[in-house]
């Protein structure tokens, strides 16, 4: 066992234990860690945003003579006009610009990546010669896709044949929710493993990973 001599590691370790102490019950140590986290996160993001975004994209180029950047500077200052009731309409200009650019960019990306290519990817042969597993997978995918689409089709009452197909769609959805939940459990346990590795290795020096 080689306890870390680094104060930073000790602070991180004690804060980790402080946060996990909530699992026993709410307590002052947890409250302290929580408030510290919120405060430091806010400060961290302010610094990160300034040095990672505002300085390299606005301050430095402006200082270098790219005067055209005065326009986005003024537009971004307009966002603060929301604090002044008489001039708050000015904030609509930069918001309109953001709303114009982002949806345009995302809609085209979505149409290409999620709509066209996904539809293309679902057109599959039901029989793959020499590969019965692939055939079953393809049938399951197409049946699941169609049944789930029918479940989300609300223009007709889900009765009779439509109701039966929609029910099959529910089962497929349940399987997908189960898979998502399983992955979520894995993600949370992974985070715990990460912290335990840190405590055992970097802090206590019991094991070297």
């Amino acid at each position, binding site marked *: 066992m080689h306890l870390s001599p680094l104060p930073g590691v000790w602070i991180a370790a004690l804060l980790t234990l402080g946060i996990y102490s909530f*699992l*026993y019950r709410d307590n002052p140590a947890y409250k302290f860690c929580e408030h510290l986290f919120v405060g430091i996160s806010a400060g961290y*993001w302010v610094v*990160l*945003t300034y040095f*990672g*975004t505002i300085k390299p*994209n606005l301050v430095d180029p402006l200082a270098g003579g790219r005067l055209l950047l005065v326009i986005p500077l003024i537009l971004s200052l307009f966002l603060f006009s929301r604090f002044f009731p008489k001039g708050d309409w000015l904030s609509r200009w930069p918001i309109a610009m953001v709303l114009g*650019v*982002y949806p345009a*960019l*995302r809609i085209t*990306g*979505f149409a*290409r*990546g*999620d709509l*066209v*290519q*996904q539809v*293309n*990817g*679902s057109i599959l042969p039901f029989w793959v010669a020499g590969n019965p597993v692939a055939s079953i997978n393809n049938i399951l*995918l197409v049946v699941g896709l169609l049944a789930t689409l029918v479940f989300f089709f609300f223009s007709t009452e889900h009765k009779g044949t439509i109701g039966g197909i929609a029910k099959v769609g529910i089962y497929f959805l349940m399987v*997908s929710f189960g*898979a*998502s939940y399983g*992955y*979520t*459990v*894995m*993600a949370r*346990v*992974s*985070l*715990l*493993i*990460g*912290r*335990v*590795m840190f405590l*055992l290795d970097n802090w206590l020096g*019991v*094991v070297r*990973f």
Partner: protein
Amino acid sequence: MSAFSGLRRLDRRWIFLAVALLVVVPLALGVHIAPVAPTARARGFYDAIERVPAGSTVLLSGDYDPGTIAENYPMHLAAARQLMRRNIKIVGLALYPGGPPLTDQVLSIAGAEYGKKEGIDYVNLGYKAGNELVMSQMGSSIPRTFPVDRRGVPVSQIPVMRGIQNYANFPLLVNISAGYPGTKEWVQQVVSRYHLPMVAGVTAVSAPEYYPYLQAGQLKGLLGGMAGGAEYEVLVGKPALATRGMDAQSLAHIFIALMIILGNLAFLGEDKERRR
């Protein structure tokens, strides 16, 4: 009081304690329960990098921050190792503000192992704000999007960046992603538009969202969470952090699955008793 109602009244802190022990004990003792068997998804990731000709330059985007180190860092490091082992040059970047130091760490560790030099064999372009806009702008000009690297060196003076103009200069995009912006946006903005082959290593919680991309061939390989990272480490031949964590992961999963079954049995049993 029946066994069912006893289970229903079990203090949840016992379950927390059991999960903690199931994670801590295997990690502390270094027990090895079951070997990690790579799946087709992880093999796809590995094979896509193996197919890249030696001497090429690959784009490696590490879009995560310290919050998901346990899941993303092992796969990021393993990818850098495989690329460098195959003498493939790396252009690293991050679309998460907290990402560049992690890319630095990954590239310097793998670089030291394989005798690669910063600037010649790899570069970290750092972080750029703008999410999809950055991806889109890189399609026109990478040197204009990232005029300097993370250390402030102009890209025109960096040997590894010579001849790199846009996505056409890369045979593959390797993305390690924790969420937004990440794999989904790279697929939508870059794979679909520029037809750049891509592999992704993602957090477990987001992995199900990307299976359709894998099925449709938009992703050549997919690593989901710590399990995906462990499978990939095995393929790369350097079992490391993710592989070490898998035994604890498996035990915790078995226990949680058991608790779900018992919880449902308790619920059904109590319901039956009430009806009686």
